[in-house]
């Protein structure tokens, strides 16, 4: 064995399950990290849990960490530590085997899924073909009469804000729910903003020159949602990114003064409320055949498409405020 190069020797030892500490043993960064990890786990005293205890003990023995563990588990001033509540009942090594089975099972399930889905993909209507079932009378009407029925040139905007506006309302409500939940989870009363160290000169210069362009472009995308690709969601995302950039350039305290959290949440609420009321009116009159249609205007003009322009504005405000709110909430820190 002496002739073998060092690495081969280690591989053989590893394969035989008797890996010893190599020459660079404690210096190995990975090993050191693992050691620290185990020490940390021991320090937090959750070794008393079932089979995990055995697994860790074997790992510790392999690493020669028992002295550390002993000191932690039986500190000198407490001769009789309280008995653990969860008594280890399972055989040693069971958890490791279960983990192995779990991993093999998940890979197996994934492969099965992949095979089934590939078979499905091959039996689906061909990509790009024109006589597929999805191009039926529903899609035909959206494309043929979409302009006269919604007043929007952009058929996707017409679809989501007129034909299927109820889904879009639900979607805005999901976003609103997510913003409220994130605030509920992260917004502690004593939260403090991160210490602001002053902007980086590159960021500051570039950001200040880009910011107006980005915000203007966002507004353009929102307002032209019914005429060109875009709309409330995409434009709102651009606006939100612009606000985040502004926060990076101007600093959070300045932004907090300009656009406090309260304003943002009020704006979201009001926009969603306005969306609900406008669309509620449209649903109600449509269902009861009361007429009351908003004039559609000339398709292609900026003031056209009935409710679509104000709805896009509402959606844009909701998305921009929500994105910015997520950013500030994730930035804040509990003290």
């Amino acid at each position, binding site marked *: 064995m002496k002739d073998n190069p060092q690495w081969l020797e280690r591989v053989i030892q590893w394969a035989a399950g008797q890996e010893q500490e190599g020459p660079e043993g404690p210096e190995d960064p990975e090993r050191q990290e693992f050691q620290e990890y185990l020490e940390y786990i021991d320090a937090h005293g959750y070794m008393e849990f079932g089979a995990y205890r055995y697994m860790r003990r074997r790992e510790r023995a392999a690493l020669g960490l028992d002295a550390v563990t002993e000191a932690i588990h039986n500190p000198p001033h407490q001769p009789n530590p309280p008995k653990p509540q969860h008594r280890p009942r399972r055989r040693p090594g069971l958890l490791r085997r279960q983990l192995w089975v779990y991993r093999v099972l998940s890979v197996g399930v994934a492969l099965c899924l992949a095979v089934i889905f590939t078979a499905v993909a091959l039996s689906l*209507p061909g990509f790009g073909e024109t006589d597929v079932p999805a191009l039926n009378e529903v899609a035909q009407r959206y494309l043929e009469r979409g302009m006269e029925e919604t007043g929007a040139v952009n058929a996707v905007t017409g679809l989501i804000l*007129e034909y299927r506006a*109820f889904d879009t309302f639900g979607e805005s*409500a999901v976003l609103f729910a997510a913003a409220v939940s994130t605030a509920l989870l992260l917004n502690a009363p004593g939260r403090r903003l991160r210490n602001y160290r002053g902007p980086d000169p590159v960021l500051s210069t570039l950001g200040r020159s880009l910011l107006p362009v980005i915000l203007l472009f966002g507004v353009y995308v929102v307002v032209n949602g019914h005429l060109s690709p875009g709309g409330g969601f995409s434009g709102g995302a651009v606006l939100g990114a612009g606000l985040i950039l502004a926060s990076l350039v101007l600093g959070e305290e300045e932004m907090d003064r300009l656009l406090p959290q309260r304003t943002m949440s009020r704006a979201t609420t009001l926009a969603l409320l306005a969306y609900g009321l406008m669309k509620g009116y449209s649903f*109600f009159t449509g269902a*009861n055949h009361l007429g009351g249609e908003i004039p559609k205007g000339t398709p292609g003009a900026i003031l056209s498409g009935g409710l679509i322009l104000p709805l896009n504005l509402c959606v844009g405000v909701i998305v921009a405020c929500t994105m910015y709110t997520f950013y500030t909430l994730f930035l804040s820190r509990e003290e």
Partner: protein
Amino acid sequence: MENIPFFSIMLPILSAVVIPFFSKGTWAFQWIRGVQLAVAAASAALLAFLCRAGTYVTYQLGHVPAPWGNQLRAGPLEAVLALSFSLVMVLCLTGGWSDLKRDMPAHRLGSFCLLMQLLYAALLAIVYTDDLFTAYVFVEILAVTACVAVAAKESGRSVVSAIRYLIFSCLGSGLILLGIALLYSITGHLLFSGLGETVAELQASGAYQLPLVVSALLMTLGLSVKSAQVPFHAWLPDAHASATTAASGVLSGLVLKGYLVILMKLMTRVFGRELMVSSHLCDLMFFLGLGGMLFASVSALRQEEVKRMIAYSSSAQISYIFLALGLGSTYGMTAACFQILAHAFTKPMIFLGAGAMIAETGGHYWGELRGAARKMPMGGLTFTVGGLSLCGIPLLAGFSAKFCLAGAALQAGWQMTPALFGLAASSVLNAMYYIPAILVIWGRHGSDTSPIRFTRPAHPQRAAALALLLAANLLLGTAFGPIRTLLEQGVALF
């Protein structure tokens, strides 16, 4: 009358949106409770109207008619579900309010009420919608709000369970969305009616059979993951046990049922029972249900913590519904609906009763709850009645549901013997964990000889909610005939 489904979705959403303007959590609470009561009353009126007319109504959302626009659809079954969901929601919030105020800092109560109201709106939208994609969007609202309802309580454990819940829930949504995408690519429809017609044509012509079955399978699996059917139930006990009392009641009484309503709609309106039976998906559901009934009950036997035991029992009760749907017959569907109603009224009652006892004694384990019912007779009484109902004692809701299910099983073919066996075995198992629990809570603590205290309840609202749930349980148990007739009518028009 036709406007009621629409308003019962819009009103809760809009009322939730204005909550940030309220400065106090209590106002928000009174506000959402008022809206829910109003919706409950409107649903009752709608139910009466639909039963007398013997028909269903559709509601076109917007100016474009159905295959192009979106629509709602309400029959007697939808109205019954909306009515009972509203009532359970109100009673859960009322009964759990005192615990909520204890479990949560005051500035979060408003947000919690907001999320609960959105959850309620999503449930109603799921009940009434006639569009698959709308159902998906509202399923996501349900998932987000339910997850936060778990995490809202201030403890590390509840956040851990919430994140596990969210992982499973996102996995389920991913599967459902994939199923919807597949189904759309072979049919080109999203409305249930259009989907149903196209699927029937596809089945007749024999085209795209594999994508069709895989899509049905994906949606069934996704919905079973979300409703904690047994092999996918890992998230449920922790999530339900670590949430605050009101949230536990709502989660296991209502949220799980919302997903099952979609499954029922898919079975009847889209794929049709023939496809479900011929592709063995019904058999899959039947065996999932059968396995779940036994496995979850055995797991419940081993729990030492009160709420975890109740949560496992929820999983077992969901399995009954899967078993009933797996029979693939109209009787099975009626039995499933009866079980949905019975469980929606029983489980929140048990959770609230247990929550009251836990609040009284401060213990979460059976050992710490010895004699708790003697100090808290109302909580003990509802826990007892709920437990006995789930064991299948006659004149209580659980018995009626089981009776209905047994009747449906007798009409089935080869499923009869395993279904009846599973029903009997799981009832015995239910008794094995509920009866010792009932004995423990009414037992005496050591040498304590004080008589049962019947004092004026400290939280009259909670006592009233418990009493109303108790009455609803007795009503479901005794008025078995009329309710079954109503549900049969509803299933026929579903």
